[in-house]
């Protein structure tokens, strides 16, 4: 049973260039909690998912790459070991348009980061209560995207 441990507080915009957000991570208290483990830093994940929800735009967009905990001031592309996955954004415009068949609430993308997430813990600036997420367009000139929410689930 997956358990939500972090979510962005409000919708945000990806402005066509590289965009970074901070996600506050909380210790699981439900099925993902491990009784014999104290503190989020010692928590060993079974599976970890990063969801990017309600992605909308009026224009077609090239895919975006998602990176986690890129060191401040450095380019995400220089850290392939921190690459979480790609957002394909296929069907973005159609999913963003409200009509008789769709409510226009956008795309929903899920990235499994089970192997990447524990690797972040060995980095020097690891903060178990914060997760930095970088969105990087795969091609320059990508349009502006609206994102409803980013969530982190432990299972």
């Amino acid at each position, binding site marked *: 049973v997956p358990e939500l441990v972090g979510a962005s507080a*409000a919708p945000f915009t990806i402005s066509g260039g590289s965009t970074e957000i901070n996600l506050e991570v909380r210790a699981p*208290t439900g099925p993902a909690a491990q009784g014999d483990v104290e503190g989020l830093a010692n928590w060993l994940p079974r599976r970890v998912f990063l969801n990017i929800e309600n992605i909308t735009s009026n224009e077609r967009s090239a895919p975006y790459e998602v990176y986690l905990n890129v060191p401040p001031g450095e380019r995400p592309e220089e850290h392939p070991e921190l690459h979480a996955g790609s957002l394909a954004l296929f069907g973005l415009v159609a999913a963003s348009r409200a009509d008789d068949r769709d409510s226009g609430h956008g795309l929903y993308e899920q990235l499994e980061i089970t192997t990447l997430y524990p690797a972040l813990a060995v980095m020097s600036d690891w903060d178990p209560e914060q997760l930095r997420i970088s969105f990087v367009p795969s091609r320059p000139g990508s349009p502006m995207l609206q994102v409803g929410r980013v969530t982190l689930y432990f299972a």
Partner: protein
Amino acid sequence: MSSAVPSAARKPVLASLRLFSWRHPEWWSVALCTLAWGMLLVHGVQQLQHGSHPAGTFAEELRRWLWMVAAMMLPFTLHSVRATAVGSLWARRQRAMAEFLVGYFAPWLVVGLAVAALHALAWAHTSIEAGLCFALAALWQQTSLYARGLAECHRNWPLAPAGWKADRDCLRFGAAIGVACVQTSWPWMLACALAGHGLVAMAGSMALAFVERRSFWPRPRRVLAGTLALACGYLWAGGLAPVLFVACSPTLQANPGEVTELAAETAGAFSLAGITHIELTLRVPTPSAAGPAGQRVFLNIERMTSGTLSPPYDVYLDVPIGEDPARHPELRAGLVSMYGLVPASRAAGADAAPGLSEKLEITELYARLAAARGNGPASLRVSFVPARPVDGATVRVGRVSLYLTRPAP
């Protein structure tokens, strides 16, 4: 010895229940829906026993409306309730679902206030209005607004993780889904309310909604056909059937030189098992005291059936509420003798039992009642009083109707 087995079995049961509640956090919404259906079934059975749709108070109608929303609409909202729980932090999953439901019921409550007020109107208690509303639903289903509402019912909403923003977002998410559901389903729900929350109307509408929302492909033609069938059924029960009954019934057939007009009728069958009061709501135009020259007024008690002998019943009109009809001989309309009731209640071959029908002329009494009020009454209270103790005998009455006849111009 006996305690060892239960304690061994208890753990897996508790673990299974816990796992079930984890996987299906919306379980108590299903329980609420089941409870609502139970309440409405009890109401429906009572309605069948009384054979009519009694108008309740404003509060009663509003309560029934909310039960109906819970019974009929919650099953189609469970995915959103679940999404609210799964999209919330574990500690506030139950609270998030409760807030979602508060938001969801808010727009339905606003509609419910209007419907409860509508029920106070005299004309909102017959099957004709329910049938017309189902016909309106068939038209509404063809509009773009309906389709958009249906698409909106499946939307999701980004929820803040904690704090007052999380509470606000859950309420807004519920309200958004509630508004979309109102936009989609209001004519069906209104029709069900006008049908007195009848089980046929509710079960039929629910089945149509399942066809519409649970099919892999949309089934608009099936939903349209089903809605039109409900419309025809209720229009038949409320309007067309009595007209044809008048045309076919030899006892009620008008003379060639007379014009006959149905002024009032009961919404359905009911039972006599002692002193019984019913209310007849007069249709427009309301018959006046004097009426046209030569006007006659008849009260028909139709299709009475019973398996046992029944004592005669005295019929009184407009006896004040709470008073004994026997103390008002001036309001006595006549006697229903019940002679030949049991033979008339037996089916003849493939034909249904014709039942016993009685016709009382109340021209003079009706004129007196109308004159006492200064105008034609809007409704007529009919009281049936057994001449002797009934000893458990129950008489089923198919319909009570009020007819006006006058010479043809």
